[in-house]
Each structure stands twice: as C-alpha cells, then as structure tokens.
C-alpha cells in the first residue's frame, strides 16, 4: 500500500503546484501588462499628427491649438504623462477622451460588451459545430465526406476576414437572399440581446472562421484518440460503437480542444476588427479603428490594454479548465 501513500503525497503536492502555477501565471501576466502599458503608451505617443490640431480641425489657428494642448496636459514631459495615466488607471480611472470628451470607461463599456456578445454567440455556433464536424470527419477520415468538408474548411480558413464578410453580405443580405441586415446598426438605448438579427452576419462570419480552424483541430485530435490503445481496448471489451465514440474517445479530445478554444476566444477580439468594420458594428474593433484615425489616444490605449487583459485572463481560465478536465494522475486535480 506504499502506492496509495505515494499517490496521496503526490495529490497534495499537486494541489500546491497548481496554486503555485496559477500564482506564477498571474504574476507574469501582471508584469506583461505593465510592460504592455509602457509599449502602448509609447506607441500612441509616437502616432503622427497633433492631437490638439486634430480635435480642432483644419480651420483652427495656432493659438487655439496651443491653448487646447496645454488644457489637455499635452505639453507635460512624456514620462509625467505616463505616470499620471498609469496612476489613474490603477484607481480605475481611464480618463476622458480628448476627442469625444466622454469618459473612456463609458465608451469602452458598451463597445466591449457588444464585442463580447458577438464573440460569445459565434462561439456558441462554432464550438458545437466544430465538435460534431470534427468527430464526424475523424470517424470517416479520408472518405468523400471528409474530403469535401476539409476542402471547405481549408478554403474558409484561408479567406481573409473581409473577403468572407463581403461574400456573406452579397449572399445573405444584398444580392441573392435578403435574410439578414447587411449592417449592424445597433440602437444604443436597447439591449443588444433584443437586436440579435442585426448582428447575425458578423456572428456568422466569425463563427465560420472559427469553425474552419477549430473543426480541423478536433478532427486531428480525434484521429489520434481513435488510434489509441484505450479506444481499441474499449472495442475489444465489446463496448457499443456509440459508447466508444462519445464516452471513451471524445472526452479525451476535450483538453486540446479547450486549449484551442481559449486561443480562438482570445484572438477573436483582435480578429474581429475587420469584421466589425465591414458591418459598421459598434464594437471594440471599430472603436479602435476610429480612435486611431482620430488620434483619440486614451481610447486607443484603453482598448489595446483591454484586449491584452482579455488575452491573459483567457489563458489563465483556459489553464484552469484544462486542469479541471485533465484526469488525476495526468497532471489534473481532483
């Protein structure tokens, strides 16, 4: 029974190791966020064009520009501006946009929640779809159906976002069918949940792009799993086919799937920029593109850091889910 004792010991070490791992990831994420804040601040400082000039437009006089510049604190040394900014950030104050004179937090809040809704909805479509397609094509690997689906997967996956978005607008909105609105004109006063048809196309575009990548990953993992000894043994044991597939094989493909899903989730927030632009969707991406164009640097800074934060948070959550799903004895925890 030394086995048992060893396992018990290993178990307690494992829980400790998990905590330490989380702590380390948190610390490293915080550090990276700090570095990121410096980089983002430096990058926005280096953007050409004078903010005051941009805000006032073509018809302003130099005196007006100077006056606005000092009113906005733009003539302070850069390091002071940075420290003030970070200090305010730490107190939860994102500042006020130079351009819209609105609190950056307010801008960020609605835009972020809109984008989150689109990404989540696209996830609700792409994840189940990918699991079903991935399992189906793995079971039927190299048959005609697999090849056809693979071709479409590769083609969709290869298409730049705006190409797919434009094709979907042509197909489902403007030219062939008139099913969904081609523009996501959300009314700001109304909950996005009450306006879902308006965001159907952006969600669909994103979902197709996600699925075309994700399903192939599920397929590849499932092929590995289906070739494993334990699946063969389950069949030799006399387990029914359906049981072998869904109870024995699929659960073992979930861990890599969760990892990939986490990645897709995190990078969707960057990838959605172009899609939002095509559909004029009021999300983080269009806000960012607008803000870069208008030199609304506080908004650029806030959005970039938010995207980074989402990335780090997603990674940590993904790792936690992975650990929860990983069976004990393989690095998982009970």
């Amino acid at each position, binding site marked *: 029974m030394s086995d048992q004792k060893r396992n018990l010991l290993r178990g307690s070490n494992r829980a400790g190791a998990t905590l330490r791992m989380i702590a380390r990831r948190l610390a490293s994420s915080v550090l*990276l966020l700090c570095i990121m804040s410096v980089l983002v601040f430096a990058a926005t400082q280096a*953007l*050409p064009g004078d903010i005051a000039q941009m805000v006032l437009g073509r018809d302003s006089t130099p005196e007006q520009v100077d006056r606005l510049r000092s009113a906005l604190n733009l003539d302070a040394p850069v390091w002071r501006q940075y420290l003030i900014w970070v200090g305010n950030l730490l107190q939860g104050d994102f500042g006020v946009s130079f351009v819209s004179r609105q609190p950056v937090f307010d801008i960020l809040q609605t835009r972020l929640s809109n984008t989150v809704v689109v990404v989540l909805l696209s996830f609700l479509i792409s994840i189940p779809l990918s699991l079903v397609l991935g399992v189906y094509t793995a079971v039927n690997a190299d048959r005609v159906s697999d090849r056809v689906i693979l071709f479409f997967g590769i083609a969709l996956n*290869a298409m730049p*976002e705006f190409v797919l978005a434009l094709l979907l607008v042509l197909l489902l909105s403007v030219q062939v069918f008139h099913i969904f609105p081609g523009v996501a004109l959300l009314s700001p006063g109304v909950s996005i949940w009450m306006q879902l048809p308006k965001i159907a196309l952006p969600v669909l575009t994103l979902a197709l792009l996600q699925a075309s990548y994700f399903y192939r990953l599920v397929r590849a993992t499932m*092929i590995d799993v289906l070739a494993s000894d334990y699946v063969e043994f389950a069949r030799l044991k006399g387990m029914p086919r359906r049981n072998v597939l869904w109870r024995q094989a699929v659960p073992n493909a979930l861990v890599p799937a969760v990892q990939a899903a986490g990645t897709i989730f995190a990078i969707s927030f*960057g*990838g959605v920029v172009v899609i939002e632009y095509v559909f004029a969707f009021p999300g983080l991406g269009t806000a960012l593109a607008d803000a*870069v164009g208008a030199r609304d640097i506080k908004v650029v800074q806030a959005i970039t850091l938010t995207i980074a934060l989402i*990335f780090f948070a997603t990674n940590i959550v993904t790792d936690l889910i992975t650990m929860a799903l990983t069976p004990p004895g393989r690095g998982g925890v009970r």
Partner: protein
Amino acid sequence: MNKSRHGYMVQIASNRLAQVGFALILFVAAIAFIGPLVSPHTHSEFVGTPYGLPTDGAPLGTDNLGRDVLSRVMHGGQDLVWMAFCATLLGLALGTAMGLSAAFFKGWTETVLMRVVELKLAFPSIVFALLFVTMLGPGKGLLTIVVGVSQAPSVARVMRGVAMDVVRQEYVQWARSVGMRAWRVLWAEVLPNTTSPLLVEFGLRMMWSISLLAGLSFLGYGIQPPAADWGLMVNENRNALSVQPFAVLAPIVLIALFSIGCNLFAEGVTRAIGRTGGTE
C-alpha cells in the same frame, strides 16, 4: 537523418494536397510576376469611364478611375506576393531563431523569449500593424517588417516545441558534450531537423501574411494609391460591387486562390510527414 529528410521530401512531393496547393501558389505567382510584363495597359492609364463593363479593350471592365481592371490585376500581385513572401521569411527566421534558442539554451533565455512571445500574442496582429503603419507611414518595407514581426511569435512557439524534441536527441547532446559552439550546434544539428515543420509553418505564415496585408489594404492602411494592389483594388472598388463586380471579384479570387494554395500546401505537408497535430 539526411536520408529521412529526403524521404519526407518525396512524401511531400507525392501528397495530393501539397501538389494542388503548390500548383495554386505557382499559378497565382505566375500571374503576379509575369503579368506586369504582358499586361495590355499600364496600371494607371485611363482607358474608359469609371466602372465600365467588360469590352474588347478591357476584358474585365474598368475600375473606379476608368483604368483597365485586367491590367491592374496583372500588376497588382507583384508587390503583395513579394511582400508576403519576404514578411513570411522574416517571420520564420525571427521565430525560428527565437524558438530554437529558447529550446536550446533554456533557463532565462527561454523565459525571456517566451514572455516576449506572449506579450506580442496579446497584441493582435491587426492592431499591432494598424498602430505601426499609422506611426511610420504605409511604406512597403515597413509593411513587410510589421507583418513579418507579427508572425514571429507564433512561429517561435511552434519551433520551440519542435526543437525541444530535437535537442533531446543523442547526436545533439553529443555535439554539445564535445564542446561544439552553441550556434554551430543550432545551425548544423538542430535546424536541419526542423525542415518539415518549417515547411508547414511557411505555408501557414504565407497565408496569414497575405490575409493581414490584404486586410490592412482593405482598411486603407496598406499599399497606397495609385499603385495597383489586390487588397487596395477591393477597397477602391467594393462600393461598386453590384455595378462592376469584376473589379472586386478578380482580386478577391486571386487573393483567395493564393491563400487557399498556401493552406492546402501546409495541410499536405502536415499529412505527408504524419504530424497529426492541429494545423491552423
């Protein structure tokens, strides 16, 4: 190991997906590079009214300024393909250097390099490119570098994974134990054993480079007019998609064929070398 590498090459060359992918790449590259030599008009010459439908003089019609779409399509791939290629090579070189170094030296080198990778990954490529292009202006060189650099971290992750297996091999350990210089071990022993995954990465990165460059052009942050560029052409002419579809569809089809070619090639190589892991 030279023999096995040769074997891989044969397998890759005989893989149907890789063949089709490579043929597509060649086809589009041929249009891009031979096109400018044989195009009926220059890329900026006015041959008709804006958005004219196909005629004998302009088989694909005219664009927003009345220029010949066919000639612009023939001129518009050279820069894109060339930039995507250079950006990909840059991304692969940088990423491979980072990945191999991380796997080989371990310790602090690895920690720092991998943190840098993570930092960059938290910065979506499109946002990264948008900021830098706005900052430094949309020059071809800069676009290439920005796109290349933004590809490097993903390559670094993959190559680190690959190299970790190679570094554990006996001949590498042996080379290190007899006191070969680190860079020589990397160059002569580790790198040659990563060719197949590098080929896969090449296909994938090429695809993303095209996608990113075209996306930037589409947002107006790419190659600037009056140059002919497929991404820019889509941007310039998409208003008239329903009037003169060829001005948009021709470049879209070529972009799509090229990136599908790259993706097929990557998938084919992956299958040929039996790496079943997730391809992007």
